[in-house]
């Protein structure tokens, strides 16, 4: 007691908030240098005409007005929306179904889980190349399967076909659901056993138990991951950039790709910055809407 009582007097009096700030200062500096300042700069650039090699010239809201009449902007917006509208719900359902199956007290869970998780570790460039090979119109494994096993006579030329390129990318996105699967599985394993037992005593089968008991319990986790998946989908870039270069006929030209082209191909930094702010706004609005809509659907754990 005596030692403990003596020590505060000996310690130098540094206000605790300064000590705390000092410990988090590396992040604070990084946040300012690589985040806050670039964001502020970007807001300013978005109000300028900035061809990168010459200084920016203030043009007011011209870039934002240009967007309203930019057909390509509308096209990439619609393409990205369609991609997200299919990829997010399908990916979520696939991940939930796989997690639900893995949660059935099966043996060898780690092996099955590994098979589904490994694709998320594959570098995007490599998975893009593998899927280009799989989707190849003549020799690709997918079309060979369609011809010889399913019996299709004229399978699509996937990435080379305006109508099929975007659906092909959605299919490919379903291959990379390992992260949500692992997260949902962990959440399902946290569902109290008593809830299942009570539902089983009420005569519910496994499918109805999953739908009526497990899913409502893990709904906050699902919501969070749907938000993350939506944000990821809005950023989709590398896969179409490598596999289709936005084609054919701009069928897979997405928002981030257009932003990239404006900034680094056309060197229109002003317009690119305006695009970035609109993208941020879209993501914030989508996130907000999802949280609001789901307020009723999501189960709040009572304290």
């Amino acid at each position, binding site marked *: 007691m005596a030692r403990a009582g003596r020590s505060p007097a000996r310690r130098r009096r540094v206000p605790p908030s300064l000590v705390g700030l000092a410990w988090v200062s590396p992040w604070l500096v990084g946040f300012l240098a690589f985040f806050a300042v670039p964001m502020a700069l970007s807001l300013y650039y978005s109000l300028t005409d900035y061809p990168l090699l010459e200084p920016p010239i203030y043009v007011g809201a011209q870039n934002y007005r240009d967007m309203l009449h930019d057909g390509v902007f509308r096209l990439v917006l619609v393409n990205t929306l369609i991609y997200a509208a299919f990829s997010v719900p399908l990916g979520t359902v696939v991940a939930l179904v796989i997690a639900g199956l893995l949660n059935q007290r099966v043996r060898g869970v780690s092996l099955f889980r590994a098979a589904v998780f490994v694709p998320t570790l594959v570098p995007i*460039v490599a998975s893009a190349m593998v*899927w280009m090979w799989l989707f190849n119109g003549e020799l690709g494994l997918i079309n060979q399967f369609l011809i010889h096993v399913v019996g299709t006579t004229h399978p699509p030329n996937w990435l080379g076909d305006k109508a099929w390129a975007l659906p092909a990318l959605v299919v490919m996105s379903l291959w990379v659901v390992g992260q949500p699967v692992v997260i949902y599985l962990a959440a399902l394993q946290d569902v109290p056993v008593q809830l299942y037992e009570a539902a089983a005593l009420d005569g519910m089968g496994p499918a109805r138990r999953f739908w009526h008991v497990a899913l409502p319990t893990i709904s906050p986790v699902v919501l969070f991951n749907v938000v993350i998946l939506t944000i990821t989908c809005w950023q989709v870039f590398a896969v179409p950039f490598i596999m289709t270069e936005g084609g054919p006929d701009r069928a897979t030209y997405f928002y981030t790709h257009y932003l990239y082209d404006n900034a680094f191909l056309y060197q229109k*930094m002003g317009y690119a910055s305006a695009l970035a702010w609109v993208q941020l706004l879209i993501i914030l609005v989508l996130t907000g809407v999802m949280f609001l809509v789901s307020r009723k659907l999501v189960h709040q754990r009572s304290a």
Partner: protein
Amino acid sequence: MSRQPHNSGFMGGPGRQLRRALVYTTLIAISLVYAAPLLWMLSTSARPADQTMLIPPRLLADPTSRMPEYAQENYSSVWHDPVVNFPLYLRNTLVVSGLAVAGCVISSSIVAYGFARIRWRGRGALFALVLSTMMIPFPVVMAPLYVLFSRIGWVGTFRPLWVPFWFGNAFSIFLLRQFFLTLPKELDEAARIDGCSHWGTFWRIILPLSRPALAVVVLLHFTYMWNDFLAPLIFLTHRDQFTLALGLHLYQSQAGNTPWNLLMAASTMVIAPVLLLFVLTQRTFVQGVAAEGLKE
């Protein structure tokens, strides 16, 4: 509450066995579908070029016994490609990833300690700010970052790829903070009584106890760096600086009609190290991903 024996009532009997058989069949089918692309990649990488064009396709080369020989031929041809310098790109990737991972672990654990083990005003608000930056995608800041880095002459160097990570990374800070919070408060008090400063507590007590969490951060960040495509694409300008991801893209695009067996051999080479890491550390990986997604 009394526990029901497993074989009693409606749960037991042949229906249950049928259901289990169905679950296993479905899981095996799903696993095969998910493994197929990579298996097909491996199979293609161990065949001569003319055997990638067989209709209908075959999983194994003809003759099968020569597959190791074919594989060796393909892989060595990729490794020694006269234009795309894979050995150099491997070295570049290791340098960039190593610097980034080291900085990320060191800075993030210091920041996480400040958020988890010290009480101070404004802590909650600042941590909320850390979390909110995780929601902001890189494309939103890439244009102004490029301008910034080109002003200070960093474009065309490795620096934009690793220096920012020496100032903490939001995901890693979050993961480490959650872990630090689970360590009992009494540890700090005991250390304080023994005359430990915050730094001593952090260095001698908290960090040694956090090895599992640090391992998760190292693994997740290393795979992130290994796989990253967009940042190297923007910030690296000379071929000599390329990472493996960029090199693979170059290998695919420059030749136009590089045979599929070589492309698949190159892809396998880029994937193999990450897969090996996963096989060796599967539990750590899975725990880390689960912890990242279960935040409330």
